[in-house]
């Protein structure tokens, strides 16, 4: 940290992002383009604030962990069952996309003048799309859950798997000595079979640890009650998995994705999401900036026509193949344009693969620079293409046109968030579930979480007063927030957070006493319930019955009392703080009101309620019993 260079770079990167991203976002271009432009701006060819390709590739290396974190988070949202349902799209569509794009682009590259085998390899590298750009852009535009978005996601997942054989084939095509091939990646010294074994072992260990070890670890950390250590554990986990995967020659992003899927059914899912989300955003931003900074503007300025033709050829070929796939696989209406416009660019793995191909002598420096340039340019074009094509991308008018089964692939958030699942919340939760509603339950007591989950409830460990946890629980899409927390201050804090950040949420809350209740009503919370009123009135009703009041009048008395109580609270709330004497005057009035109310109790002769069942022989009352 004492290195002034660190502060300098941090200053440059952050300033560039802070200036350009909000502008891009405001122009409707999405944050990705903002980051890319920021990168170009600070890059060696414009302002020269960050170094040439060597230092920016170092930054890119750190920034790639953003992609790893992102895939971990995506994995967290996908249960294994949901992934299994996707298997058809994943293999069928993903496989066809790689094969078709790879071969056709390869032939194109061959015609451009590269030897056939290498040309095919380049074709396959160009067939990869950018997971980071596609998913970030689709999420920003809320298009990720549409049919086209899900097809794109499945394809990207397949591409991440396809990177493995591409990395393996690369050295085989090398014309240079075998020693150079050995530097490709750390696992290539293993034979094919050994590497396969290592990959299986790595994935198995991630799955097993995710199942048995991690829940234990998280519960242990959570019980320690140190928030930053939980965050540290989450980051450590993701980076460790990434490290393990690159050790065996697997894409770190893919490994993180597997770990995410394994942890998707863990109660710590929301907490993990909340903790990692800001890291993901920042690291991805850094990644996009470094892509921008690495763009070789000189090459573009030197040979604009050549680059433009190459770019146009690439984009047109890849786009046409993608569009054809959409037709071939009978995408839902509107899905094909989205799939095409979001997936036509080159992927971040292309940079890695091209630089390795250059080291291996498969590509010349000039060729590799050109390919890198068109990949980077196509990335920058993606947000623009989605903006330009937005009229095509209008979702189909009939939402039923997309098959419902597919919609399950990405789990949608519940309309209800239930904060607290203790003695109070469990009643609310059980009642909701009895009617088929599955609230997202947030609970801070780790032991309680485990117990409740064993009873078959979907309870998530997480402090509902934290903004990031509310986000992760889907507060932006939910309709209702039910607060069943016992602590008064925590309730107030959650009410304030929810009202400030999610004003659309309707709040149903528990109040710890009369004063608390009045305060909450005064703040404008619509549905405030005294935590003891229900039980106390039930006890009172039963006591009345035991004293000889028939059941129905006793029930009516309790309901009447409850109504009076709610009205009193509503009347008292607005003046509680403003005018103490008026407050007490109203209390006196309400108490008198209560007395007259119960003079009119059905068990008292001559009351309004009593008249309702008065026999006609009694004087001055309308004959009801005919």
């Amino acid at each position, binding site marked *: 940290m004492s290195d002034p260079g660190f502060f300098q770079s941090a200053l440059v990167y952050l300033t560039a992002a802070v200036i350009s991203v909000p502008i891009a976002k405001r122009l409707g271009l999405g944050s990705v383009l903002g980051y890319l432009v920021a990168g170009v701006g600070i890059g060696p060819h414009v302002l020269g604030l960050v170094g040439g390709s060597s230092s920016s590739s170092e930054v890119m290396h750190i920034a790639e962990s953003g992609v790893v974190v992102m895939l971990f988070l995506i994995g967290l949202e996908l249960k294994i069952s949901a992934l299994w349902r996707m298997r058809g799209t994943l293999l069928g569509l993903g496989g066809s996309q790689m094969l078709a794009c790879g071969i056709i682009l390869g032939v194109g590259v061959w015609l451009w003048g590269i030897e056939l085998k290498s040309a095919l390899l380049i074709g396959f590298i160009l067939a990869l799309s950018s997971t980071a750009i596609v998913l970030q852009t689709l999420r920003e535009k809320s298009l990720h859950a549409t049919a086209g978005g899900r097809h794109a996601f499945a394809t990207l997942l397949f591409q991440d798997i396809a990177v493995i054989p591409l990395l393996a084939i690369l050295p085989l095509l090398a014309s240079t000595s075998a020693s150079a091939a050995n530097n490709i990646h750390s696992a290539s010294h293993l034979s094919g079979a050994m590497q396969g074994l290592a990959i299986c072992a790595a994935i198995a260990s991630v799955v097993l640890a995710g199942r048995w070890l991690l829940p234990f670890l998280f519960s242990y950390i959570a019980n320690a009650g140190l928030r930053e250590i939980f965050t540290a554990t989450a980051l450590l986990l993701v980076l460790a998995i990434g490290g393990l995967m690159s050790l065996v020659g697997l894409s770190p992003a893919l490994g993180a994705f597997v770990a995410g899927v394994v942890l998707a059914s863990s109660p710590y899912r929301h907490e993990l999401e909340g903790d990692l989300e800001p890291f993901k955003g920042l690291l991805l931003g850094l990644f996009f900036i470094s892509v921008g900074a690495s763009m070789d503007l000189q090459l573009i300025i030197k040979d604009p026509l050549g680059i433009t033709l190459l770019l146009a050829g690439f984009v047109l070929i890849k786009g046409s193949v993608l569009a054809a796939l959409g037709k071939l696989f009978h995408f839902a209406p509107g899905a094909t344009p989205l799939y095409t416009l979001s997936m036509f660019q080159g992927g971040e793995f292309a940079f890695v693969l091209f630089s390795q191909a250059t080291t291996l002598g498969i590509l010349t420096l000039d060729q590799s620079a050109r390919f890198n340039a068109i990949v980077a340019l196509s990335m920058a074009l993606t947000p623009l293409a989605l903006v330009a094509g937005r009229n095509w991308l209008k979702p189909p008018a009939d939402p039923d046109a997309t098959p419902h089964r597919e919609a399950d692939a990405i789990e949608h958030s519940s309309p209800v968030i239930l904060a607290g699942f203790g003695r109070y919340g469990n009643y609310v939760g059980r009642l909701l579930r009895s009617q088929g509603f599955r609230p997202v339950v947030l609970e801070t007591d780790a032991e309680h979480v485990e117990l409740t989950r064993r009873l078959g409830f979907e309870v998530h460990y997480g402090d509902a007063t934290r903004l990031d946890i509310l986000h992760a629980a889907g507060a932006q899409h939910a309709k209702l927030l039910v607060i069943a927390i016992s602590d008064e201050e925590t309730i107030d804090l959650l009410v304030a957070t929810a009202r400030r950040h999610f004003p659309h949420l309707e709040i149903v809350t528990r109040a710890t006493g009369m004063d608390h209740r009045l305060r909450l009503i005064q703040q404008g919370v619509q549905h405030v319930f005294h935590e003891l009123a229900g039980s106390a009135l039930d006890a009172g009703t039963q006591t009345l019955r035991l004293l000889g009041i*028939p059941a129905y009048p006793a029930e009516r008395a309790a309901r009447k009392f409850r109504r009076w109580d709610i009205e009193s609270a509503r009347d008292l709330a607005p003046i509680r703080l403003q005018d103490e004497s008026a407050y007490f005057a109203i209390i006196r009035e309400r108490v008198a009101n209560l007395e007259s109310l119960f003079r009119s109790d059905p068990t008292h002769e001559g009351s309004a309620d009593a008249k309702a069942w008065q026999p*006609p022989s009694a004087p001055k009352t309308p004959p009801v019993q005919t």
Partner: protein
Amino acid sequence: MRRRILLLHAHPMPHRSRVNRHLVTAAESIAGITIRHLYELYPDYMIDVDAEQKLLLDHDIIVLQHPFFWYSAPALVKEWLDLVLQYGWAYGEGGTALQGKSLLQSVTTGGAAEVYCSAGRNRHTVREFLLPFEQTARLCGMTYLDPFVVHGTGQLQTEADLAPHSQAYCTLLSNLASGIDLPPSP
């Protein structure tokens, strides 16, 4: 063969009902009778449909006893009919659960017998007012028995006033229980 009687009593304010209470007390002497106070069981109107249906299956004679409120029954009786006599159970396709059973209605009216005729203040007979109940019973395949009516409850103040009615009620119920058929409603 003895027939089992289920007496469903519905009065929202039983402590203020003189005649109905008297009749129920009298009915308690009938051997094997089941008496249920609907307003005591369901003060919140949450009728337990399963339990009510099971009781209906276990009995042969169903007695609905209630005051005559606004030419009909108290609201809970309507709720009971709405919920318990389900399609496919009591009527309609496969709805044969009540077939062959009998329904007796036992009502108390404030008005004297004279006012319940075409020339009287109420312009119709009690039987006419009870038409929806009768047709309900028929649709469920039940025999609708001639209702037991006590008129002019306001005039029945003393034990001596009430005794003839409770005796008649007891005779009627014990006859039903021992299988002596009453004439079905004409």
